[in-house]
């Protein structure tokens, strides 16, 4: 083991990587926070993120414009959210199994479309990613500058979205209605607001953000697309939402924890520890289980969590 490699810059680099790797999960978790606050459990997140990753990649590849990739990912994710809305709000089916179906559909469809668009190639198609854009002045701050202010634009977007999501949820009429729908849908209904519409909107927001989270992988982190590129990040994002107790700011800390686990795993590999890489790769998944177990007992789920709403059924 090369202990001399563990230097101060190494640790700062690790933390910066943690922030960068947290972003896909953060986008998805912020979206799912809206969805779950409205009383819907969307376990299709993994499939939606995969579709978003594909849409982002194809959009950027076809047009040469990364922002069109972002737009396409948002639209595609939103459409997948709409589909989950049809399943859970209109058809009122079991949300766990519906989410599973969405995940299987998304993972199959993203693979199929990628193959149909690009065929089998010896070298995978690539795109030029969002470049790192250090913020003038702020990026000069020691430690914090490299950690937070020297990233690509999607990282800043995700970080700005945290307070925005908080304000929307806690300081707007819409946020109040959304939270009420998750707790007392019948009360919202008697006030003349449409429970179904609010839930659909929450799913479209959640889907669009999950799509964006998936698109971060090809657009800013990897530059390519491959089958199952999200590798469980959708499920991890759902765990982050429970960890965060449905709060956007705590979701940031949760996402950073997993970004940290992924960054740690990557940098431990560069240290050439006598631990096989396959075992290090398990780290984020093991941490997810441990964290979930730690928080689930204390978590107060929204009262109408995963329960379809209908006026007749009580």
């Amino acid at each position, binding site marked *: 083991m090369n202990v001399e490699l563990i230097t101060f810059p190494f640790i700062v680099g690790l933390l910066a990587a943690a922030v960068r790797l947290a972003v896909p999960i953060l986008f998805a978790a912020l979206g799912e926070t809206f969805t779950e606050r409205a009383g819907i459990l969307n*376990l299709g997140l*993994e*499939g939606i993120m995969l579709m978003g990753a594909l849409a982002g990649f194809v959009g950027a590849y076809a047009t040469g414009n990364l922002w069109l990739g972002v737009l396409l990912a948002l639209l595609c994710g939103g459409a997948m959210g709409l*589909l989950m809305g*049809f*399943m859970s709000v*209109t*058809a*009122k*089916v*079991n*949300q*766990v*199994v*519906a*989410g*599973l*179906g*969405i995940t*299987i*559909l*998304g*993972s*199959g*469809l993203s*693979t*199929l*479309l990628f*193959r*149909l*668009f690009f065929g089998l190639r010896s070298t995978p198609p690539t795109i030029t990613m969002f470049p790192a854009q250090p913020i003038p002045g702020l990026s000069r701050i020691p430690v914090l500058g490299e950690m937070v202010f020297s990233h690509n634009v999607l990282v800043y977007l995700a970080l700005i979205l945290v307070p925005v999501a908080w304000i929307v949820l806690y300081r707007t009429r819409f946020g109040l209605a959304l939270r009420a729908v998750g707790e007392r849908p019948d009360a919202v209904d008697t006030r003349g607001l449409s429970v179904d519409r609010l839930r659909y909107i929450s799913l479209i927001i959640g889907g669009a953000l999950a799509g964006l989270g998936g698109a971060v992988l090809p657009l800013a982190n990897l530059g390519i697309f491959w*089958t199952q590129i999200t*590798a*469980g990040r959708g*499920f*991890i994002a*759902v*765990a982050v939402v*429970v960890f965060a107790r449905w709060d956007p700011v705590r979701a940031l800390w949760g996402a950073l924890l997993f970004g940290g686990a992924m960054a740690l795993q990557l940098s431990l590999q560069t240290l050439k520890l006598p631990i*096989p890489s*396959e*075992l290090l*790769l*398990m780290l984020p*998944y*093991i941490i*997810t*289980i441990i964290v*979930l*177990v730690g928080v*689930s*007992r204390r*978590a107060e789920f929204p009262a109408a969590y*995963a*329960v*379809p709403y209908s006026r007749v059924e009580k």
Partner: protein
Amino acid sequence: MTTRGQVVLRRSIDWQALGRSTYQAALSVVLSLLIGALLLLVSGQNPVLAFRSLWDGAFGSVDRFTETLVQATPLLLIAISVSLSFRCQIWNIGAEGQVILGGIASIWVALTFSELPPAILLPLTFIGGALAGAVWSLIAGLLKAYAQANEVITTSMLNYIAVYLLAFLVHGPMMDPAGFNFPQSPLIARALELPRLVAGTRLSVSFLIALLMAGAALLYWRTTLGQRTEIVGASRRVARQIGLSVPATIALVSMLTGALAGIAGWGEMFGLHFRLIEEFARGMGSLGIVVALLGELHPLGMVVSAFLFGALVVGGNAMERNAGVPFALVDVIQGCVILLILARGYIFKFRRGAR
């Protein structure tokens, strides 16, 4: 499969309900195939050619037909495994990991105790595989029962962990020393291989074991344990009121679920591959869930749907080879089948007013 659940203890056959479910299931599959064909059409492929090579690949000859049964074998076992949990409202999606653990443990037993006579060793490998699958599933079961940890997330995480564990073992401690660094374990002894049902094909006794387990599942739902499973699934509150321990039932059902998936892994090892290889369980978890749901979580229904998806897998591979259409088409069809089967009551309007 409704959220509220109903206690349905089937005693006699309800022909009308059977007809209705068959009709809806068939319609779901046909619609899913049509969606797949449409996707191919839009992307400039020839769907007729694709589905033709799919059909020929699955049923074109006796050899192809036995291959369909070979693929149906693990799917049926996994579907039965999944149906136990799902009927208890435990959303265990960890079959893939449990299959992997079953494979690892059974091969480990076979290689470690290779000096034992085959008649003793083979049953031991079976037990080892079932046990390892049960323990892997029990982790998620206990965490759900006693820590309220969402089993969908824990089991999917356990799947990833199992995949990396398998990769680690076949690249490291269990790698065949004489295998030119291929990521695979040594072969098991010839005497441990399950006998073939049809000479010259890959169809082995493990297929009969899967059918046997479907029969066992039919009986299971008539035992007190089966009824307990269904009552806990229908209503946790009612179960508590009549004095059933909900956490203990969840743990027990999780173990049975894992054991059956572990047996599927054992069957893949001793009936098909005869050694550990990477990715031998890839995609089986989600396929097993689709088979279970399409079969309405009923053992006989699942036999039919396992056969159907066995054919789709074999045909899908042939389609990729012969027509150049990606196998992922089968995954898309899977997703469509699940969503259509779930929303069947709404989409097909068969049960109008019955809600």
